[in-house]
């Protein structure tokens, strides 16, 4: 290590002296200075839109929105499962609002006096209403997300005075307040954006795609789509304590090997998408700090389309559940970096929680027996599909599943679906067998089940599972949650979890981890429901 450092410095000096002009020396010291105040993040892909309300904004775009815009409220931090700061689902803190008053059928927010947008104009209740109106009417993902918290109509958002805004509830829903703390209800500089709005584009989406019109802790200094984003700290930020990092450079490095090399060499400060194996090795190596946190309300699962024979037969589904090589997947695919969702003790009571482990285990004899009972003693042929965008995990996982299923006579062909096409394929609901991940921003079991198991057959109910008993339990739990009826809630949650496991339309495999690799001098990482980085808390020593 010392030799390397030496080499590095001699190379640098050699280059400087070779330059032969005084300028490089000055440049170099400036460079060292800026290096210390700058955080370099490397990831596989970058944002395609800086505005979460935009059309087709990708997930990296959420990170830009989170750090550049403020919302009325945010979550407090608590200690997470691994001692890392973890957002507290139930505790809120003001961000743009200085206080929040939740009534029976409405909530009132008072804005901070000195809150200003990046262009210096003060943040007003008018801006907040305009922004929330935008979120519920613009369509697509933002509108859908608002609806999840029963925020559906512009009439719900009332400007009380310049600094006060009231949100009216259309129904009692315990998800309404949490939904105001997700990324979508961000506050946009309405005057600035309206200047760039047109008749075809009344919400100015074209403008906010390229430009930040927020009041958040960071501004975008430079954005080269697909290459890098440079964030500069907003020195006038009022949403919280002044962030420590002055500048963040987010560089797109498509090759995972290169990302690891950059981290190991100390050239990059943070990366959160590396193969699991790399995280394990880097952790054991000890040169970097690695933080692993389970996805909140998320699982990777094997799904079966219950409308497609033979998966319409519950015994076939159970046979698959008994044939899956759970431990092999944990070892060879996840390298132990995930929480098993299988093999709960036979006598363990069902918990009022989600996700939780099911009671299936790899038991080929039992699987064969179930298959024979279902009328497929010699197995059958089918296709197993996965999202190529996450091939690093999905591909070996499917290969192992394929091999294991082969042993009970189920022959599968692996179908790689390009990332962009995955959602279309899911929407078609024609894939018989597939693996996928679902995780909800709002961490409530009934939220998960409403989207994934309910008979309304949303896109996330990838199995086309429809069962009136299930629908009744989910509805019961949602109603009980809104009214705070804990016994009914507990009973219904246990009910739908049990039913989901018994009917086995989807077989949970594991709860994935969010892994972040950081240089030792970087600290302050916080886990958020959106699983992206919050630059505001990060510190570089």
């Amino acid at each position, binding site marked *: 290590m010392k030799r390397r450092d030496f080499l590095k410095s001699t190379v640098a000096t050699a280059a400087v002296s070779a330059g032969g002009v005084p300028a490089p020396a000055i440049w170099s010291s400036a460079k060292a200075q800026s290096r210390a105040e700058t955080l370099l993040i490397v990831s596989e892909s970058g944002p395609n839109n800086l505005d979460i309300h935009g059309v087709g904004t990708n997930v990296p775009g959420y990170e830009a929105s989170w750090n550049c815009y403020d919302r009325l409220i945010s979550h407090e931090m608590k200690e997470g499962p691994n001692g890392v700061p973890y957002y507290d689902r139930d505790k809120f803190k003001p961000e743009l609002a200085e206080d929040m008053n939740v009534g029976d059928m409405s909530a009132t927010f008072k804005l901070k006096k000195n809150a200003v947008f990046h262009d210096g104009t003060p943040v007003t209740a008018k801006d907040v209403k305009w922004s929330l109106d935008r979120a519920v009417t613009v369509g697509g993902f933002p509108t859908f997300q608002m609806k999840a918290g029963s925020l559906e109509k512009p009439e719900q958002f009332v400007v009380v005075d310049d600094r006060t805004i009231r949100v009216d509830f259309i129904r009692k829903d315990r998800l309404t307040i949490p939904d105001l703390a997700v990324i979508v209800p961000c506050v946009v500089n309405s005057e600035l954006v309206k200047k760039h709005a047109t008749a075809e584009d009344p919400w100015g989406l074209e403008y906010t795609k390229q430009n930040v019109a927020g009041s958040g802790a960071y501004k975008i200094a430079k954005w080269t789509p697909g290459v890098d984003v440079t964030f500069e700290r907003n020195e006038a930020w009022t949403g919280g304590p002044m962030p420590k990092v002055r500048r963040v450079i987010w560089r797109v490095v498509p090759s995972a090997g290169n990302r690891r090399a950059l981290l190991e060499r100390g050239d990059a400060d943070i990366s959160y998408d590396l193969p699991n194996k790399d995280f394990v090795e880097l952790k054991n190596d000890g040169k970097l700090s690695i933080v692993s946190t389970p996805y909140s309300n998320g699982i990777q699962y094997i799904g079966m389309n219950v409308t497609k024979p033979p998966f319409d037969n519950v015994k076939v589904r159970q046979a698959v559940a008994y044939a899956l090589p759970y431990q*092999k997947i944990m070892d*060879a695919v996840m390298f132990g970096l995930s929480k098993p969702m299988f093999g709960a003790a036979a006598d363990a009571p069902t918990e009022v929680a989600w996700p939780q482990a099911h009671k299936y285990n790899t038991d080929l004899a039992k699987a064969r027996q179930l298959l024979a009972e279902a009328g497929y003693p010699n197995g059958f042929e089918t296709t197993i599909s996965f999202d190529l965008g996450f091939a690093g995990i999905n591909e070996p996982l499917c290969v192992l599943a394929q091999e294991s299923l082969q042993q009970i006579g189920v022959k599968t062909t692996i179908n*790689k679906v390009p990332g962009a096409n995955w959602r279309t394929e899911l929407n078609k609901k024609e894939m018989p067998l597939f693996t996928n991940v679902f995780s909800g921003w709002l961490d409530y079991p009934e939220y998960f089940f409403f989207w994934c198991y309910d008979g309304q057959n949303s896109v996330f109910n990838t199995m086309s599972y429809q069962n009136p008993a299930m629908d009744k339990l989910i509805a019961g739990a949602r109603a009980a949650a809104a009214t705070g009826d804990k016994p009914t809630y507990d009973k219904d949650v246990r009910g739908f979890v049990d039913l989901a496991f018994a009917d086995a339309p989807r077989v949970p495999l594991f709860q994935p981890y969010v892994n972040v690799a950081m240089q030792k001098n970087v600290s302050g990482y916080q886990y958020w429901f959106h699983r992206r980085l919050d630059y505001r808390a990060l510190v570089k020593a």
Partner: protein
Amino acid sequence: MSAPAAADGAPSGQQRPKGRFAETLSHARHIIGENPVTGLSFALFALLLLCAVFGPLLSPYDPLASDTVAALKPPSAHHWFGTDQLGRDILSRVLVATRLDMLIAILSVALVFFAGGLAGVAGVAAGFFGGWTDRIVGRVSDTIMAFPLFVLAMGIVAALGNTVTNIVITTAIINFPLYTRIVRAEANVRRNAGYVLAARLTGNSDTRIALTTILPNILPIMVVQMSLTMGYAILNAAGLSFIGLGVRPPAAEWGIMVAEGSAFIVSGEWWIALFPGLALMLAVFCFNLVGDGLRDIVDPLRRT
């Protein structure tokens, strides 16, 4: 007749002339003897064919059987080439992959050989250039050439789906202009040859001349081109695999093995990418050199 025949005796004495095939064979032996690299490449080619045919019999393990306990083991006495992420034996996978890779190479090249060759000949036949068939063939080749070929391949595979058949078809399409160009250029050189004019004088139609006179004379050059494009076919399939558009797992294919292994290089598991990479390189290398050797063999200038 009074004119004597004795004055112009045969050049090679009274020795009975050998058949064309036997002669080519002895010429080939000479070329191989003269150039050790060519000899080596022919031997390597035979070895590859052997692996393609008997690969599954030679491989010590089931190439698809995972063994998570033995995952990511470096080369050892048990696993000469080590094991991959799922504990599969890399040696076995490399051996078995020979068949698939050779299949892709040979099929795609055979396809373009016929399609490109026939299209070219059709063009030649249609009135010795200038016919509309020729113009169409020319335009199609120009259009394909104006595409960045690898991106065209990606586009077609992405659009049609990543099956082996589609990879084969795609590879054939991007090599199409190479063949039509060769046929056209070579036919152009020969179309004013005395024997072509002679064939016209003896009542052969243009089509017949193209098929029976020009094509057989171009064939050897096309065969040389075939062995060169076989190398590109494999590289192309490997490139497609690297960006995730290659053959489907768990099938063993060199390109996809390198692509999978590439993620492990930085962490020190070099063997996962290295061995299939070497096999890939060796195969392409061999095809290229065999092409060179064939060129020497069919080149009339090198015959004495």
